C-alpha cells in the first residue's frame, strides 16, 4: 500500500538573475515495508527530492501526500511535528550529539518525539533497539570513541527508536567501506521489513542496490525509471 505520494513536484533555485529548475516534475509513490533506492548521476536532484519529501525544504510546486495529508500545505510547526513523530533520518555522516552517550542519543530522540513512555520503559525501549543494531554493549560510549560503522548504526537506531513510519536515508553508506556498508544495508533492510517502514534511500553505490526492493533512476530533474 502506498502511504507516501510525491506528485508533480518541481523545485527551482534562483541564483542572482537566473532561475534554475532542478526538479522538473517528479512523481513517486513509496510503499510500506519497502526500500526504494534513488540512483542517478551527481547533480540530478536526488538529495533535493529526498529533503523535500522529508520536510526539510519546500517544493516550488506539486503535492506531497503523507497518509492523505498534503505536506506542502502544512505550516512550519506542523511539518516539525511530522518530522519529530513520523519520520526518521539517516545521513551520510552520522551527526550524533558529541556530548551524549549512545544511550542518551536515543533518549533525546524519544524526548523530541514526545513518546508517552515512562522513564523505565524508555530505557527498555532503547536497550531493545540497541540490541537490534548490535550496539547495546557500547551504550555508555561517546560518539568520538566509536568507529564509523558503529556510529552509523547508532544513527540508524536513533532514526527508528520513536517508531517512525517513513525512514529517509541520504547515502547512509557513503562514509563506510564495502564490508560495513553491506552490514548497514542488511540492517536497514531487516528493519524495514520487521518494523514495516517505508524507506527512501539515495545511494551512489551499485553494490547496495540488491538490498532495495525498488530502484528509481533520476536524470536532470526527471525520473527515468
Amino acid at each position, binding site marked *: 500500500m502506498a502511504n507516501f505520494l510525491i506528485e508533480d513536484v518541481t523545485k527551482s533555485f534562483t541564483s542572482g538573475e537566473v532561475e534554475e529548475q532542478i526538479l522538473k516534475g517528479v512523481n513517486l509513490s513509496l510503499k510500506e515495508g519497502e526500500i526504494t533506492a534513488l540512483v542517478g548521476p551527481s547533480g540530478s536532484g536526488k538529495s533535493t527530492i529526498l529533503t523535500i519529501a522529508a520536510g526539510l*525544504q519546500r517544493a516550488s510546486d506539486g503535492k506531497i501526500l503523507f497518509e492523505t495529508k498534503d505536506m506542502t500545505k502544512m505550516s512550519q510547526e506542523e511539518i516539525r511535528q511530522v518530522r519529530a513523530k513520523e519520520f526518521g533520518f539517516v545521513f551520510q555522516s552520522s551527526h550524533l550529539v558529541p*556530548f551524549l552517550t549512545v544511550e542518551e542519543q536515543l*533518549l533525546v530522540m524519544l524526548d*523530541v518525539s514526545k513518546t508517552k513512555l515512562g522513564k523505565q520503559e524508555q530505557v527498555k525501549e532503547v536497550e531493545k533497539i540497541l540490541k537490534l543494531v548490535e550496539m547495546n554493549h557500547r551504550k555508555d560510549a561517546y560518539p568520538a570513541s566509536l568507529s564509523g560503522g558503529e556510529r552509523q548504526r547508532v544513527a540508524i537506531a536513533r532514526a527508528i527508536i520513536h517508531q517512525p513510519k517513513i525512514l529517509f536515508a541520504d547515502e547512509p553508506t557513503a562514509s563506510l567501506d564495502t564490508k560495513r556498508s553491506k552490514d548497514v544495508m542488511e540492517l536497514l533492510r531487516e528493519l524495514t521489513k520487521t518494523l514495516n517502514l517505508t524507506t527512501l534511500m539515495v545511494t551512489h553505490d551499485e553494490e547496495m542496490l540488491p538490498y532495495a526492493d525498488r530502484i528509481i533512476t533520476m536524470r536532470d530533474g526527471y525520473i527515468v525509471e
Partner: protein
Amino acid sequence: MKIAWKEMKKNKAKFLILGSIIFLVSFLTFIISGLANGLSQDNAALIKDMPTGQFYLNEDAKQTYNLSKIDIDLQEQIMEENPGAAAFSVQMGFVNDADDKQHSVAFVTSTESDVFETVQEGEIILDSSLKDEGIAVGDVLSNNQFSGEFIVKGFVDKKKYSHAPVAYINMTNYQEMYRVMEMQTIFIPAKDAPMFIGLESFSNKSFLNAIPSYSAEQMSLNMIIWFLVVISGMLFAIFFYMMNVQKIGLYGILKAIGMKTIALFRMIWVQMMVITIVALALSVGLSQLFNVLAPAGMPFHLTLDTVMMLSAVFLIVGFIGATISGFQIKKIEPLQAIQQGEM
C-alpha cells in the same frame, strides 16, 4: 533540562572558564560597590543618616552650602512656623590636641534639634574615629581661630562629613571662629515642606549631591559598577555566540529530527543560569566574608540588599546576553546544517 546539563558535564573546562570569569567580574563588582557605599558613608554619613526632609540654602549660594547665608529674621520665622526645624552650618577645619598635634575635622553647629548634638559653649563632641587618634573624653583641644578651648564631652558613632570626622560645637563658638552670624542651611524634617522666598529647597538626595566631591566620587564608582555589569552581559553573549557557532551543525541536526527551537534556547538558558548562580553564590559568600574581615580603616560597607540587587541584575543581564546569542540558532536551517556537515 538534561541535555544542557550533559553538555556541561562533558565540556567541564569550557564552562568552568566562563564560570570563573563571571565569578571574578561579579566579585569585583561587589567589592567596588562595597567601596562606593563605604566611601559614601565616609563622605557624608552626617547627611545620609538624617531623617527624610527638606534642606534649604540661600538662592544666591548657587547650590554651594558654604556660600549660603540665611537671613536671621527669615530663619526665626521658619523655626517658629515649623516645629522640629533646625538651622545648621558645616565648616572644614582642625583641632589641636595637648601635644599640639592637628586633627582635621568638620565643625558642625546647629540650633537646638533632635537631629544634631547639643553642645554647651567651650565643649565639643567628636566622631568616635578620633578615639583612634588618641583623643579621650576630658581632653582639651584648641583651634587657632578660637580664643578659648574645647573640652571633649563625648563621642558619637558614624558622623562623617567630606571624609573628615564631625566635631559638634556650640553656635556662639562657631560664630566667633568663622565670623558669621548667619547659619548656612535650614533642615525641616517633613516630606513636603513649604517653599520660602529667597531659599532653594533640596531633597536629602539632591543635598548630598551638593556636597563637593560626593557626586563625582559616587558617579565614577557607579560607572565602574555598571561597566562591569555590562561587560559580564557581553561575556555571556560572546561566549555563547562562539559556542553556538561551533554547534551550528549540531543544532541543525537537532532541528531536523524535530527538536523545537525553544528547546535549544532553553538549553542555553539552563547553562547560563547554572553558571551564573554558582558564580554568584561564590562571590556573594566571599564578598560578605570580606565585609566582615575588611581592615577597620578601610571604608568598606556592603549590605546583603545591595548584593542581592546586583545579583538579580547579573542574572537578567546574563539572560539577555545568552538570548541575544541564541538568535542565530533561530536562523539555522536544518538542511544547510546537514549539508555543511557533509562537506
